[in-house]
């Protein structure tokens, strides 16, 4: 039976039969991987703990007819415990892996894998406020998928910014001449924060105030929900108390 090996980040798991799980991962080289991990729900399982959501693993798989089978697993990054220890971070991590799951359905994995691993590591180490990490991840993941938003120049005509009308359906901010009636108007601080999150400029992003972060978060969610067609369920269940 052919086998392959890949580094992968675990997105989600589903129970299968008595003690097995179906594990969904993004592989660095193989993109989306769905594999059966046999016996991992038993307390004596040798690699059950490594195949939890938000874990990064170096794994070997048998190629199966519909689902592959996990043969061996080594841990390459253990972020689950730190993320689960803070409920706000946990809800943020769910939004990130749900988006990754949807965005990698038909795409190669490497850029998404690297972005997600970096975001989970940053989240686990609490390097930045959890909500900013989520919004930055979503904007950058959408960009990798080909839906890069524009926060300065007009997304339709390319006219130099700044512009204040934001239209998710048109790809970001648009000039007044092409803005549909009733388009959301964003202030300069929000647009500046969104640009910083997209570029990964953390110094500028962390300089923002709470109100601006809330507005940027709403814009990011609206942009992601539109481009992913079906909404992300996790975004509706974010822990707003501390995120």
């Amino acid at each position: 039976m052919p086998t392959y090996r890949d580094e992968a980040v675990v997105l989600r798991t589903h129970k299968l039969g008595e003690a097995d799980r179906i594990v969904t991962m993004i592989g660095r080289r193989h993109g989306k991987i769905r594999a059966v991990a046999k016996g991992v729900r038993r307390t004596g399982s040798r690699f059950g703990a490594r195949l939890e959501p938000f874990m990064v693993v170096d794994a070997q798989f048998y190629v199966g007819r519909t689902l592959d089978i996990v043969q061996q697993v080594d841990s390459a990054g253990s972020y689950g415990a730190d993320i689960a220890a803070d409920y706000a971070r946990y809800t943020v991590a769910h939004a990130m892996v749900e988006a990754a799951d949807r965005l990698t359905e038909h795409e190669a994995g490497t850029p998404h894998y690297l972005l997600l691993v970096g975001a989970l590591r940053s989240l686990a180490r609490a390097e930045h406020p959890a909500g900013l990490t989520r919004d930055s991840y979503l904007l950058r993941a959408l960009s990798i998928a080909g839906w890069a938003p524009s926060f300065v120049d007009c997304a339709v005509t390319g006219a130099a910014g700044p512009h204040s009308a934001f239209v998710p359906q048109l790809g970001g901010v648009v000039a007044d001449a092409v803005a549909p009636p009733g388009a959301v108007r964003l202030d300069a601080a929000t647009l500046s924060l969104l640009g910083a999150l997209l570029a990964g400029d953390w110094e500028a992003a962390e300089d923002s105030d709470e109100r601006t972060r809330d507005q940027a978060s709403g814009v990011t969610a609206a942009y992601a929900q539109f481009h992913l067609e079906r909404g992300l369920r996790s975004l509706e269940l974010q822990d707003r108390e501390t995120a």
Partner: protein
Amino acid sequence: MYEGIVQELIDEFGRLPGIGPKSAQRIAFHILTTQSFDTTRLAELLAEVRERVRFCSICGNVAEQDTCSICRDPRRSQTVICVVEEAKDVAAIERTREFRGLYHVLGGALSPMDGVGPDNLRFTQLVQRLADATVTEVIIATNPNVTGEATATYLTRLLDQPGLRVTRLASGLPVGGDLEYADEVTLGRAFEGRRTVEA
């Protein structure tokens, strides 16, 4: 494919969790070919279980009355509540014969990706049970995985009140195993939860 009712029976068994097409076919043919198999009793039980079994109005465990046998038992300690994800976890803990308190079944674990948030679990009912200050300890016995740990984290925050001790089940090495086969996550937990050995 089989004809008519046989295929219907196989399809119905195949809809049960953990039963694939082959297992469904095996069960169906066992019923068909084993003369001693009491199909009437099985049919009666299936109908009866749906009618009689409900969830305990206090703890959420399965019960045949309004409350379950554990909540009705006056010999159980009323000061300790063990919080579990599913009713089947109650049975697992009861098998240990170590715990003599009450239970609270949450009905799952927090998983935003699956649409399960705090409003979908029995957190409010738990807080209501703690209102009269009879309970002095809550033991969180959610599963030792990421989802269970996050649920425990949320509960710890929710139950942060004076006079209430909140504890979490220990996790670590399984009894009867060899240390060299333990994964690093479990072994790390065992180190974190190490305890002093009395001389």
